[in-house]
């Protein structure tokens, strides 16, 4: 009997032990901080982390965006032996079309909106920062920064979508704003930039977070505002609003006599968590990964144009999918080379274009400034509006080569039909389809 009792006792004890050890704590994500925790009452460190994240996120899928613009705009061909869609879909070979559910459409779209969401979280977090002790000027500077970046990210998606339009008000995930048409989207982006500029004016003397090395010279609210106005000038140009373009330029870092390279950049690095330049290819790369110059870039150039340094002749021509090219694109010469967001050379050319029809002297001054730096003689062609526009487009083509402008410029001036076709059956697309997952 004793033995049974002992055994019964032991069994009960064992069961009891298992029972008592049975109340669980809710699990948490062990592998990252949660959005709610940060947006509801951020610390100074949280705001700094969010802002740094926004700047880093701006670079995500930048390579896909630049390739989309560069390939469709016939600046270069993107050879990739392991992905045929770069030379098939993007160039419209045969009966290929742009697919609304493939990475070249969906990846940049999703990446830019992820940054937009982060800027909205930043704005909401700033509004909810009760215990961090931000001054009104600091809060204003945070808003100015967030709105400017948000406007820029939306503009990049609009550039790919064109007449399909974009959503602009996306802060509430359960109530996303409607799609706005192309002109309305530009208007909304302009409004965001203007709102950001106003915030930056009240933003005090410094940001409560660090800016990346790409913002060197633009890392105070007052200087950052110049970047904001530069973007506004670009948007005004796209709207065809020359007056606003000129007034925005005057508040930006535009300097007719300044360096061509001054401006704001995406920066890259080889170290650790950081990412490398996504559009860099070594010279003489194989079909596995190469950016080969579309031949008309060389044949259409003026003799002695120093901007032809942006392309380098290969040791041997490279062929893929019926395209043969002899020159590598060599704008970005190392895998940590920065990529411009907006720089003075573009501002000078905006100034040139905005003055067409109103101030011939200034327009020519700007054009010739660029030509001079490029080792060319001053412009001596016709000076009617149409010819001047063609000249500005020509300079933009060479000055801003491979920076994602050519396709947009030819499209907004109605000249897509002039872009060269390499193979019978190829097409020049006007825009990318709206991603399948947008209802």
């Amino acid at each position, binding site marked *: *009997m004793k033995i049974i009792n002992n*055994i019964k006792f032991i*069994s009960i004890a064992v*069961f009891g032990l*298992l029972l008592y050890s049975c109340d669980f*704590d809710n*699990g*948490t*994500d*062990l*592998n*990252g901080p949660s959005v*709610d925790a940060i947006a509801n009452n951020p610390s100074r460190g949280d705001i700094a*982390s*969010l802002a*740094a994240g926004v*700047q*880093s*996120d701006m670079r995500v899928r930048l390579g896909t965006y630049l390739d989309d613009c560069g390939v469709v705009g016939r600046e270069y061909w993107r050879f*990739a*032996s*392991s992905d*045929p869609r770069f030379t*098939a879909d993007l160039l419209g070979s*045969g009966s*290929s079309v742009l*697919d609304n*559910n*493939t990475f070249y459409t969906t990846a940049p*779209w999703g990446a830019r*909106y*992820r940054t*937009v*969401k*982060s800027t909205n*979280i930043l704005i909401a977090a700033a509004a909810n920062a009760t215990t961090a002790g931000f001054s009104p000027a600091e809060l204003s500077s945070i808003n100015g920064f967030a709105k400017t970046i948000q406007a820029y990210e939306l503009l990049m998606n609009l550039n790919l979508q064109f007449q399909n339009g974009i*959503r602009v008000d*996306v802060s509430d*995930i359960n109530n*996303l704003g409607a799609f706005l048409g192309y002109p309305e989207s530009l208007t909304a982006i302009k409004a965001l930039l203007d709102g950001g500029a106003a915030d930056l004016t009240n933003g005090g003397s410094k940001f409560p*977070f*660090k800016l*990346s090395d*790409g913002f*060197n010279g633009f890392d105070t609210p007052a200087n950052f505002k110049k970047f904001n106005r530069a973007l506004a000038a670009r948007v005004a140009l796209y709207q065809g609003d020359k007056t606003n373009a000129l007034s925005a330029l005057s508040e930006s870092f535009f300097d007719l006599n300044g360096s061509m390279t001054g401006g704001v950049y995406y*920066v890259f*690095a*080889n170290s*650790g*968590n*950081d990412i490398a330049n996504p559009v860099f290819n070594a*010279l003489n790369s*194989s*079909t*596995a*990964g190469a950016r080969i110059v579309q031949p008309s870039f060389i044949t259409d150039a003026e003799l002695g144009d120093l901007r032809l340094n942006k392309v380098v002749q290969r040791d*041997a021509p490279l062929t893929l999918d019926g395209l043969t090219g002899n020159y590598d694109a060599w704008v970005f010469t190392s895998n940590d080379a920065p990529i411009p967001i907006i720089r003075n050379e573009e501002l000078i050319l905006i100034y040139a274009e905005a003055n067409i029809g109103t101030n011939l002297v200034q327009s020519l001054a700007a054009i010739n400034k660029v030509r001079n730096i490029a080792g060319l003689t001053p412009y001596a062609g016709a000076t009617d509006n149409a010819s001047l526009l063609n000249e500005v487009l020509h300079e933009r083509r060479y000055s801003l080569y491979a920076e994602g402008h050519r396709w947009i410029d030819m499209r907004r001036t109605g000249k897509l039909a002039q872009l060269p076709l390499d193979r019978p059956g190829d097409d020049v697309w006007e825009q990318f389809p709206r*991603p399948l*997952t947008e*209802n």
Partner: protein
Amino acid sequence: MKTKLFIKRAFLFFLFMIPLGLLAQTAKGRIIDTKGNAIPFATIVEKGTSNGTTADDNGNFNLKVSKLPTTLDISSLGYVSKSVTTTTGEETITLQEENVGLDEVVLSGLASNVKRANLANTVATVSSKDLVGATPPQTLDGALAGKFTGAVVSSNSGAPGGGLSIKLRGVTSINSNSQPLYIIDGIYLDNSSIAGGLNVVSAAAAGGSASNQDNPSNRIADINPDDIENIEILKGASAAAIYGSRAAAGVIIITTKKGKAGDTKVDVSQSFGFNEVINLQGTRPFTEASVLQFFGAGNVALFNAAKASGQLHDYEKELYGEKGFITNTNVGISGGNEKTTFYTGFTHNDEDGIVKNTGFVKSSARINIDHKINDFIKVSITSNYITSKADRGFFNNDNTGTTIGVSLVGTPPWAQLFPDANGVYPNNPFGASNPLQTRDLVTNNEKVNRFITGGSADISIYRDDHSDLKAIVKTGLDYYTFATRAIFPKDLQFESVNGGDNGVSVQGTTENKNTSYSAFLVHNYRTDNNVNYKTQAGLTKETFSRNSILSTAKDLIGSETNLDQAGSLQVEQTRLDQKDAGFFAQEEVNFKDQFIATLGIRGDKSTNNGDANEVFYYPKTSLALNLHNFDFWKFDKISQFKVRAAYGESGNFAPNGALYTSFGSTTIGGAGLGITLNGVLGDLNIKPEQQKEFETGFDLGLMSNKVNLSFTWYKKQVDDLILNASTEPSSGFTSKFVNAGKLQNTGVEIGLNIEAFDTKDFKWNSSVNFWTNDSKITRLDIPAFNLGAFGATLGTFRIEQGKSATQIVGISETGLKVHGDAEADFQMSFNNNLVYKDFELSFLWHWKQGGDNVNLSTLLFDLNGTTHDFDAKGLDPSGTLTNGPYRTSRLGVSADVFVQDASYLRLREVGLSYNIPKVKLERWFGKSISGAKLGFSGHNLINIFKYNSYDPEVSNFGSNGISTGVEVLPFPSSKRFMFHLTANF
């Protein structure tokens, strides 16, 4: 010894049992089998009492009984139990060996066994002989293919070290786990696949598909098949409900060998062999004209020069044409006495792959001890240590032209890629990497050190005439460290300073620990009319923890590979910590072996759910009617006719990360460390998937069970299917997990086993299996969406209401169209075992008919102009284009050329062995060897398929998820030829 034991027993019985009066009479005798040999340790029990004994080494027994005449129940494992009425008290009793294991015991609850004859589910059993009898397998899960119905066992590639998926009864889930739960001797085993971080070089998950394409192995490859006694497969919730939330995709229960009392037996086996590739694709038969047309004039000169000097190379043969040497050594020792028995096994496997620098080495040591402390407490311990190392090469998809497969397709035969006299490899002018250099210099290594141990105690608390109660306590531990090492030295063409990372060293370490504890009570109650009630109830608790650190170092110093000898270092850490707890209860009623019904319920909770203390309930019920045992049964020829039905429910957790909306980290120079959204919107309230399965069928046995037919129909429904709903990307999130659908699998499983001949000289046992499965999405609350693979242009999977869950859709001239289905039409297997005197032949054919793959390997060959059938005609319906140009012309127009039929007929295993007759052995070796066998065998020797690539069994995306069967230039699969020698001492 024997008398002492008996006195002890008698003493105990006297204490606890209702006194049976004076035990005045004796029953004694001998138990033998049909050949006249003794059956040692057979059990003899006085019917209707618990008064019993065991026979000794020679089958002799001596039992004190209450009266004579009396009836004795004799039983022994492997023999048909028998009741003998004795008047004199002296008997020689002969027991028949069992046929086809009807009395075989099968696990039916977490703590109990039931005879197969009484089982209401169709539980597949794979015995040790089925598993390793014909040929030594490479991994345990690979050895299961074609051996039981209701499963798709598919290997992901031919890389040494494994990497397989087992899908029981179709697709169990889209996003959550769809691999079965593995339990070995009561210990929950970890079966993860942990990626080695190769993506940093291959960039596979960059161009449109974000998932793990590193081709890791899975951890079941660590288990040694030679240690296994048998494997039971519970295919769905109707059998596995008792295991709760982790059993939705079925449970595979592995039992390892235990010792047998008696003389110590030593079994030694050694096998040697080699492997070679199954199906090389071949190279395109180039001519000057075809070279000029595709590659241009420059290459024509190179082609002619190479041809003239005999330097045209078949690089595919160079890469995949090795014959890898295989050796397996196995020693098993078992023995013991009536109180303690032990089994120990040592194994060493070493195999080279068909590609240089690949291979798999594994060593395993096991010890299992069972010990009877006294008559009512029995303890057992199982303990296994495994260490293994696999070199898997660098294959599969990439976006950088660096994997060996992708680099090969771009390399025409006139490329000169061999190293010179100093061992310097030329750069490959046709691609980003020199595949020979990559093969020789890149390391992709996985190392495992694993310790699996468990203990259990069986305590008999109470025993009398009609009932007994026992408690079972089990604990288990599965601990391993898994280290991956992927080194890409800077000498490689693609790592050179200008274009590459200047050397990459990716090292990962994972430490994983699973523990499990359970305690049950089992109570049996027998009435006098032979109605048996078995009740069991218990509690279980499991913990799972993992810490995975993956470090990627770039810009290495010289030829160093340590992580600190590098210019840049990036670290990723992932942790997992889960606890589950649950209870279960089950009641089984057995009415005279005629009618067996069970009813059970499992409840469990887990920290994997949003509310960690919410309990989810999973009931089960089943009924088996053994019509042949009923009184009205008059058909003598039909020895068994059982009708059965079973129903059960189980659950499946949301995938890791579905609950939370979190930030990841990111860096940009100057601004420092930032936080970034990872694009997935979490939901704390997400519910686990709920599976309900119903199965029914019958088992028919004819001619005293020489012919057995088993038929089952099942329907498996998964509700609250967790789907990765695309959110509109403009929200900032591209996806979120929601409970938004219902998936159904129905199918039929038929098994026919015939013991055609069973004479002294010739035995032939044959079984034929046939099984089908059809899946359907019966409800979908979100819009239909594509997932897996690489997009509709190339063929992708699509989840759509009313359609098969595994349909493959793609673009076509008329819009999005269904091009195929990954599910097979049916599968059949044909397993035979023939014995003629001393020779034994076994072979297993496996036929899978239907089921499509998305084959992108051929496309990549075509785009580079190197496909073997580029210039052949036959694909173009209009007859104008040859195959290569035709396929590329379809790119962007229709995905039909990429969706290909993956049917196959394989001779999975064949083995011929010769048992050296005892007479010869005695003459040569005296009495020291009791048996010896030598034989030849092979694995996958004959493979018949129309599929236009290396092997239709392939998966670029690994084991889990729906997009298995997509291929992008994998490590080719191989066949094995083995010679083995076994000796028993």
